[in-house]
């Protein structure tokens, strides 16, 4: 039985072909302000045993049809090339590109509650984006009028294609912690900012440039509206963040003083100058030399604070050590996440010229996942609420990646407080003013970072 689907008009663009990368489609959706979560493509489900007949019908309509059986299991949808449709006979479903669907009025046919009895087609449904790691219900909370939709309803009609799409996005795993910070909603600021004594600080980071080297930034996020953003990409993709990690980190370091509505304050340097170096792709990985290139860019642009919530396992990398030294020599400070492997600090944080950050839980104990060994300081890293990609806008996640921008944000406040607090002097001030904790320095360094 066919089901009634969205009545929203479906726009088309060159980013809606069968072989279009998911990232390109999502970027196009953001650019056109489309919060429907529809990709513009359609999923055609054939009646049982009618797939071959359906394929013939597609051909009769002049559609170029690709067969998924012709591709290897490692291929993504991009392997379909310029085909109008990709048929997956094993599951009796076809993906039809936006242009081909528009020409054949599939948007209108998707409105029909039932197909003709002699049609090989059982249903036509708009394809929607599937986001890794978040439950559908969580995403649905961001959409007015859809609050009552259940996860099963949300997934209906396109589960068959979800695995293929997820393969484009990367492995799907549940985030470690995603507990809404109810307390923060009451007190008006996140637990992390309160622990760091940010709300009572009179500093805001004005005049200080904070670089966040990560997956980019959701440049159209309303919480950054009006903020000048210096940006550059080093991975061959637009700065626009399609991963979310970079947007989350930037929110903590530089988010607004008073977000709209009941959203608690989660950002520290709300007047700091934002510099976004996209050194990780939308898949969350570096591309040859991109991290070093981004570090060079941040140093060349004299970013007083350079926040790096990224890393890899292994010993110190001499090039990172040189980069940290070059930054210190220029009066700049690189701050990096120790890592979440419950193992020795990874690189670049393990370089002696780069400040390494460990993660703390809300009870100010070291987080179980936080790396250890070379640790200079600690910051709130568990259950951190901050900005996320639209349409969700906010998300609570955990990691030393979240602790690092707390330190970077506080560093910007300290740097604003005195022109002498730059580079090594800023490093020392952060450590000298940290709140001492009853744990080994190898776990928390000098302690919990504090705002001036």
């Amino acid at each position: 039985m066919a089901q009634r689907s969205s009545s929203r008009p479906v726009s088309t663009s060159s980013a809606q072909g069968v072989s279009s990368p998911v990232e390109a489609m999502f970027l196009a959706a953001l650019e056109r302000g489309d919060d429907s979560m529809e990709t513009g493509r359609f999923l055609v489900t054939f009646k049982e045993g009618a797939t071959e007949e359906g394929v013939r019908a597609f051909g009769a309509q002049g559609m170029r049809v690709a067969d998924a059986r012709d591709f290897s299991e490692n291929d993504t949808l991009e392997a379909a090339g310029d085909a109008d449709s990709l048929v997956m006979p094993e599951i009796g479903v076809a993906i039809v590109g936006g242009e081909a669907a528009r020409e054949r009025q599939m948007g209108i046919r998707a409105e029909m509650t039932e197909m003709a009895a002699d049609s090989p087609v059982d249903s036509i449904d708009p394809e929607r984006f599937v986001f890794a790691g978040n439950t559908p219900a969580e995403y649905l909370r961001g959409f007015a009028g859809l609050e009552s939709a259940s996860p099963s309803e949300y997934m209906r009609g396109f589960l068959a294609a979800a695995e293929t799409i997820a393969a484009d996005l990367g492995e799907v795993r549940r985030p470690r912690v995603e507990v809404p910070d109810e307390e923060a909603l009451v007190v008006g600021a996140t637990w992390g900012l309160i622990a760091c004594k940010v709300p009572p600080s009179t500093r805001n980071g004005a005049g200080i440039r904070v670089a966040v080297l990560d997956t980019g930034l959701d440049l159209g996020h309303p919480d950054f509206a009006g903020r000048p953003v210096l940006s550059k990409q080093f991975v061959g993709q637009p700065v626009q963040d399609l991963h979310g990690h970079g947007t989350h980190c930037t929110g903590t370091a530089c988010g607004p003083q008073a977000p709209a509505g009941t959203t608690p304050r989660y950002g520290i340097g709300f007047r700091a100058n934002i510099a976004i170096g996209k050194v990780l792709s939308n898949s969350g990985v570096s591309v040859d030399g991109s991290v070093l290139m981004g570090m060079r860019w941040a140093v060349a642009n004299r970013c007083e604070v350079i926040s790096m919530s990224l890393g890899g396992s292994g010993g110190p990398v001499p090039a990172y050590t040189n980069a940290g030294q070059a930054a210190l020599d220029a009066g700049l400070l690189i701050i990096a996440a120790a890592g979440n492997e419950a193992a020795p600090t990874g690189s670049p944080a393990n370089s002696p010229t780069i400040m390494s950050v460990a993660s703390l839980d809300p009870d100010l104990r070291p987080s179980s996942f936080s790396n250890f060994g070379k640790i200079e300081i600690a910051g709130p890293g568990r259950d951190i609420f901050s900005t996320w990609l639209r349409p969700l806008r906010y998300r609570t996640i955990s990691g030393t990646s979240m602790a690092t921008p707390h330190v970077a944000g506080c560093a910007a406040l300290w740097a604003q407080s005195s022109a002498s607090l730059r580079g090594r002097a800023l490093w020392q001030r952060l450590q000298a003013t940290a709140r001492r904790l009853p744990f080994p320095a190898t776990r928390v360094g000098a302690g919990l970072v504090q705002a001036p």
Partner: protein
Amino acid sequence: MSQRSSWTVTTSGDQPIHDVAKKLKEHGFEVGEVIAEFKSILGSASDDVAEAVKGVAGVADVQRAPKADVGPPGASITW
């Protein structure tokens, strides 16, 4: 012919970095970016060439290009 990989060469700083880059090229090392500020050279080469350039004067260290990541979108363990 062995496969090429990306490498990061760190120089000792006792010779002009562009002179070191020139020597790397002479050994078959494909020089990409020269980051003089960090005394580093990015490029690609086969394992054999990478091993050979460790002996070039002015070269302090040769490592495969360091990988950094934060995990895939939605990863439970990032960085």
